[in-house]
């Protein structure tokens, strides 16, 4: 278990934005309330070129968060040592204020599926995930934050609730949590549970970062609502309301606006950051 005091998460309790290269100029010229940026680790593993240069430049102006999407922490198989080494290389030169990954898997054998796949919550998966988190934190020499998934289905085998599973991981590994409020709303809608009850049961004291983002609406075979975590639309009112519920208990925390697909112009994303700032400093 990691001594979290050694490597505190140093993101400011302010709005941040998921960085997209199209926003480089707008963001640097007129960041508005955006005080920090988050990048997907796997997009910054090239040897050089514009993307790395932009990230170096941004890190002079903004606090940074490295958000991994490809480590497959939730998988049963060993973590990919090469990939972990690439993450360490990135964290070593960028010295980000936070590193986070997902409670999900994406690799089977040698193949990588480029999606965040779900896992059952059992004693066995708990042991795997805890061991993987220990390995990540030991390798990177820092605390990591673990993000809750957006769920479209549930496993018959699960014996833990998601909030209990996350709380137990925090207890065993000393990791922090990234609470994606949009994912809570999506999962609750899709699985017919209460988002508010999830937040109330969630170990909020471990939260180092919050995410909000947009989703798409669909229906399943039986006509029930099925929300898809698209990150391609504005944040809906119900998610902002849920964020308020979280912040009322945690106090100000770093809040990230995610918009990864159908990326809008900078003023549109900036307006979402302004909305997040309002949530952080209610009148």
């Amino acid at each position, binding site marked *: 278990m990691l001594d979290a005091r050694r490597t505190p998460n140093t993101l400011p309790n302010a709005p941040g934005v998921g960085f997209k290269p199209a926003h480089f100029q707008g963001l640097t010229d007129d960041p508005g309330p955006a005080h920090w940026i988050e990048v997907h680790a796997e*997009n910054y593993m090239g*040897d050089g070129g514009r993307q790395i240069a932009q990230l170096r430049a941004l890190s002079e102006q903004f606090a940074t968060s490295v958000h991994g999407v490809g480590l497959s922490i939730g998988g049963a198989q060993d973590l990919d040592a090469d990939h972990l080494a690439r993450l360490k290389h990135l964290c070593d030169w960028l010295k980000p204020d936070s590193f986070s990954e997902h409670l999900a898997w994406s690799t089977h054998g040698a*193949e990588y599926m*480029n999606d965040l*796949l779900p896992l059952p919550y059992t004693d066995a998966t708990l042991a795997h995930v805890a061991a993987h988190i220990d390995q990540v934190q030991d390798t990177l020499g820092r605390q990591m934050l673990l993000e809750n998934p957006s769920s479209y*289905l549930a*496993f018959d085998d699960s014996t833990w609730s998601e909030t209990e599973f996350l709380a137990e991981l925090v207890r065993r590994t000393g990791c922090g949590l990234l609470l994606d409020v949009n994912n809570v709303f999506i999962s609750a809608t899709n699985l017919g549970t209460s988002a508010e009850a999830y937040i109330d049961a969630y170990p909020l004291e471990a939260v180092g970062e919050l995410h909000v983002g947009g989703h798409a609406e669909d229906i*399943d075979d*039986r006509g029930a609502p099925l929300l898809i975590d698209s990150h391609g639309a504005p944040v809906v009112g119900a998610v902002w309301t849920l964020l308020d519920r979280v912040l009322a208990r945690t106090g100000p925390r770093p809040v990230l606006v995610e918009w990864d697909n159908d990326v809008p112009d900078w003023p549109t994303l900036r307006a979402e950051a302004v909305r997040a700032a309002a949530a952080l400093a209610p009148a």
Partner: protein
Amino acid sequence: MKRFYDALLDPVLPAPEGLHDGTGAVAGKRFDVYRNNVMQSLTDVMRAGFPAVRKLIGAQNFDLVAGAFIRAQPPTLPIMQRYGDGFDSFLAEVPQLAHLGYLSDVAGLEQALRLSYHAADCVPLDAARLGDLPPEQLGAVRFAVAPAVHLIPSVWPLYDIWRFNTEDGAPKPQPVAQHVLITRADYDPVPHPLSPAQGAWIAALMAGETLEAAQDAAGAVDPACDIATPMALLFAQNAVTGLITKDPA
């Protein structure tokens, strides 16, 4: 997880057992969300990486052949800017596309553009350094070439075909063989057309041959080959990073 995984890439397989929708009903279409996410995200990666191939065969055909590629060669790295390497060889083996002989080379060009974009930065060498060498040593010199530099040999008018399919109003391809040199002076990779002899010259230099050996290689293709133009191009595009005057052995 194996059953979950197998069903992701195989739309004919039923959704795995042991999944429910939260209320106890079988997951059904909900599993398809993961299937769709995987295929959609990887197809998007392919579309972004191969715009000229897509233009050449049409959006619908592209999605079909990209889907076949994804099922045959799923990613083995979580780094999506690398996914699609090998699409050129894959296309060369698709019988329905055999009539487009140049398609594989166009894919190779697009792969190289992407590799170049993410290649390491380096400090270019001033062309004047070449003039500092005693003339009798010039033939024995080797060039250190920037990692962002790529060469795609072709028997097709590759540069013209690529340009015609990526640039509005570009001239129609003419029936000449063009090798394509990719350089990256700062952050943007730029393709340049070369004659086969010029291509042979640069290929030899990139393989670590001496200037003299490179000249011989070019002369073997075309004794009247113009070397001055590609030489000037290499230096103007920051493609040379060093001169090696000692034999590597």
